[in-house]
């Protein structure tokens, strides 16, 4: 009989309850979208910030020495990369060594960076390249140049670049022109081994750059572990990137949290207004139920169950719509769809049931109805 009564209550007041249901569905939709966004925003932001490039640098420490002697501004390539590999951390997206020297292209001095060209697309995903990152042809030494260098030296893809350094020369083939939007636009990038040969510094590098996936905290933790493995070198996160990420994440979370609370309050107020009107309508029914021997607990439980069902139904429908809304928002904000988080469903439904019950305060007051007063028409 309980469920029969519940169904009849819902049907009997469907017109009045439409407003409450709409409020619950709308509230649930926005809350579910925001929560889904909130749950996924860390992953999305991390991805976005990886676009900014390397976020960790290994450089020679103050007491760094190579082979026990100068120059102290260099590091041992094998030692640094062995340490990175020993950590076996899947969060490391890319790691590239760099050795910088200033060579001459004709009469023009240019900064040449020896590195692993094949690591650059992962390390600096925001760089735009015309041509290719590297070449697999064995009979040529590939290089890529910044767009300013290409313009200044009148270079085009396939051009030959003759570089000289301390009496040694090399002839590289231009396979790509890079637009980095920074100092890299004025540099030439070549294979590390060739630059080491020109510089006479086999096995030595000036620094290593890493792109590590994760939050600012994750990156700091990884840096600490790497620093422990490389005590003679300096390992540091690029603070601007990691701090900006953490700061933005906190701001977004605060904003989303505030909006969720605000929407919950507004939804509860809307439900409250509807239930107040419904409570007035139901005074007669409650008076009768009490006259028939209905206990306050049993009558109020019936009405609360009705509101709970409304909240659950509104939460369920709203959660489905909210997931779609979050996908749309993700597409608009991040350019990719937000991943579906299944835990949003029970969370949204539970929140909506709680909000509906909070908004049903006027129905609880029906317990105070006096049948004799109602029957007297007061």
């Amino acid at each position, binding site marked *: 009989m309980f469920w029969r009564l519940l169904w009849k209550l819902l049907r009997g007041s469907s017109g009045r309850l439409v407003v409450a249901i709409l409020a619950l569905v709308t509230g649930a939709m926005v809350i579910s979208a925001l929560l889904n966004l909130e749950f996924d925003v860390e992953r999305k932001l991390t991805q976005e910030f990886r676009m900014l490039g390397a976020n960790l640098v290994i450089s020679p420490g103050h007491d760094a020495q190579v082979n026990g002697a100068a120059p102290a501004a260099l590091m041992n390539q094998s030692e640094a990369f062995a340490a990175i590999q020993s950590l076996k951390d899947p969060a490391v997206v890319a790691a590239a060594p760099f050795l910088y020297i200033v060579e001459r292209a004709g009469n023009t001095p240019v900064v040449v960076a020896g590195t692993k060209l094949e690591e650059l697309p992962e390390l600096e995903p925001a760089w735009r390249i015309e041509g290719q990152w590297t070449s697999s042809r064995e009979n040529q030494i590939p290089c890529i140049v910044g767009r300013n260098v290409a313009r200044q030296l009148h270079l085009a893809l396939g051009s030959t670049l003759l570089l000289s350094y301390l009496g040694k020369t090399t002839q590289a083939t231009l396979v790509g022109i890079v637009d980095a939007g920074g100092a890299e636009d004025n540099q030439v990038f070549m294979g590390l081994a060739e630059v080491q040969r020109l510089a006479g510094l086999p096995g030595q590098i000036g620094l290593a750059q890493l792109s590590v996936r994760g939050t600012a905290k994750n990156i700091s933790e990884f840096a600490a572990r790497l620093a422990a493995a490389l005590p003679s070198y300096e390992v540091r996160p690029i603070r601007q990137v990691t701090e900006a990420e953490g700061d933005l994440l906190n701001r977004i979370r605060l904003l989303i949290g505030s909006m969720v609370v605000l929407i919950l309050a507004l939804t509860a107020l809307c439900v409250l207004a509807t239930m107040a009107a419904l409570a007035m309508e139901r005074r007669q029914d409650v008076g009768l139920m*009490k*006259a*028939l*021997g*209905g206990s*306050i607990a049993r009558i109020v439980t019936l009405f609360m169950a009705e509101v709970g069902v409304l909240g659950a139904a509104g939460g369920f429908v709203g959660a489905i719509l909210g997931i779609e809304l979050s996908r749309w928002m993700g597409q608009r904000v991040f350019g990719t769809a937000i991943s579906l988080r299944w835990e949003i469903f029970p969370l949204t439904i539970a929140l909506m049931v709680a909000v509906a019950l909070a908004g049903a305060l006027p129905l609880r007051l029906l317990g105070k109805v006096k049948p*004799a007063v109602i*029957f007297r028409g007061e």
Partner: protein
Amino acid sequence: MATLVQVENLRKEFGNVCALAGVSFRVEAGEWIAIMGPSGSGKTTLINILGGLDMPTSGQAIVDAIDVGRLDESGLTRFRAQKIGFIFQQFHLVPYLTALENVMLAQYFHSTTDEKEAREALERVGLGDRVEHLPGKLSGGEQQRVAVARALINHPKLILADEPTGNLDEANEETVIQLFHELHREGHTILMVTHAPSIGRLADRRIAFAHGRLVEVPASLKTSP
């Protein structure tokens, strides 16, 4: 016969208004009592107190050995569910429940529902073919018969009827009065408020009220059929 209802010096005041001013009487089990008097004389107040819908200001209202005035909220709830069957002038059916569900509602608040028994109660009042109708689809007489079925479904000790034919036309009034005759024959104790002398004369006894006090029953009403 045992005394089912004992009212002793019962008073009920609403602020400065005295609705019942020290009323005393007894009702034996199986009696049909007509409570008569002009509007505002305290008839409905008496019914409400005897039914546990209102509390007396002083005095005693004892029904089936229970002093209604001493019951707390939960005690009153149990008392209404187990001892009393109400029949109101305005029928007071739940509009979104069918005739059958209105009867089952009383079962639900009493103990457990029994659809078969509820159907039989409706068949007994001649509504076997109207069980699935909503109150809005029933005539006044039919609605009052649903109310009678609902009042009887839990086998109450006392049936309290407040102007049960007040809203009915002559034909329906006759049908409902016939039902009360049957209930009386079966041994039910009935307290019925009525304005109609013709209905009052059908009862075993008549109690007359004026200004909250019992008064002598007019001679024209003294004869039982």
